[in-house]
């Protein structure tokens, strides 16, 4: 279903912004695949009568990432482990730098899907990114983008002398309900 024209503001009350990381390396058994939620963010979606004139902006607080789940590890993550990961994200990965996305071009597709291309500022670098945003009859919104950390100059986290690493590509997903 096409999103009706209008200006929509989205945030953690209406939707979830999730980052999924995967582990790799010889000692990957010691690590976890992570589901991390961005808890402070805001997006605006300006849907025009002509969908091609639609625009989207999103800002997120890089220090608001919370580890919600770790899977595939030899031992389950406790609260201290999760806090350690969050600290590492703050200190060594995102370093609290601004996160901002601004669309440049929006192309309408079948069934109301929008292909959104734009610029993402992350860890002090700005690079292009594209993703599809779909909406269902029940006003559910969904979109996901694959981000290659090194494209933004981020060194993927590694431990145990490089035998345990986070895969360079992480998935960022937005999912929620379009506000009325």
């Amino acid at each position, binding site marked *: 279903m096409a999103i009706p024209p209008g200006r929509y503001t989205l945030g953690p009350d209406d939707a979830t912004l999730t980052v999924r990381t995967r*582990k790799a390396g*010889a*000692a990957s*058994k*010691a690590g976890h695949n992570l589901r991390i939620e961005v808890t402070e963010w805001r997006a605006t979606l300006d849907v025009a009568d002509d969908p091609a004139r639609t625009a989207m902006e999103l800002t997120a607080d890089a220090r608001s990432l919370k580890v919600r789940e770790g899977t595939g590890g030899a*031992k389950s993550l406790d609260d201290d482990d999760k806090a*350690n990961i969050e600290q*590492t994200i703050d200190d060594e990965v995102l370093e609290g730098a601004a996160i901002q996305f601004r669309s440049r071009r929006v192309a309408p597709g079948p069934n109301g899907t929008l292909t959104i291309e734009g610029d993402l500022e992350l860890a002090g670098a700005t690079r292009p990114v594209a993703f599809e945003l779909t909406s269902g009859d029940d006003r559910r919104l969904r979109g996901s983008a694959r981000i290659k950390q090194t494209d933004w100059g981020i060194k993927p986290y590694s431990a145990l*002398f490089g*035998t345990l690493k986070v895969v360079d590509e992480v998935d960022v997903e937005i999912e929620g309900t379009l506000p009325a």
Partner: protein
Amino acid sequence: MVELDHSFENGKPADYNWHAILDLDRLVPCVQGGRVVERTSPSEAKAEVKVKMGAMSMTFAGTVAVVEQDDSSKRAVMKVKAREVGGQGHANADVAFELNDGGGKIHTAAQITGKAASMGEGVVVSVLDGLIKDFTQRLQAI
């Protein structure tokens, strides 16, 4: 038992390396996460190594002792006996150094048990190899 061979180059005279390596207060911190807890004799110390594994970490605490020392050939063997803090595992190793002008060779024979070993020998070899390579890098500045 895992056996590994490494070498290091630091451009320093053999006598310098010999005295540096036999000084456990200088040698132990060259292991990432390693520190001397207490020097119990000129050739022995209580020490611990904290290994970060992503979110989690394991600490091994025990002793390191110089058990063989040949001043003329500049060959020394150190025996490491450590136990996982709060766990059931052990990490024991005989580390043999052969020093010469400019660097030296290191032969490690290690036996790891417990949680770390449960990840499989291939993983243990990869991690130990990484740890010793990192150690040899730090020996460049000892």
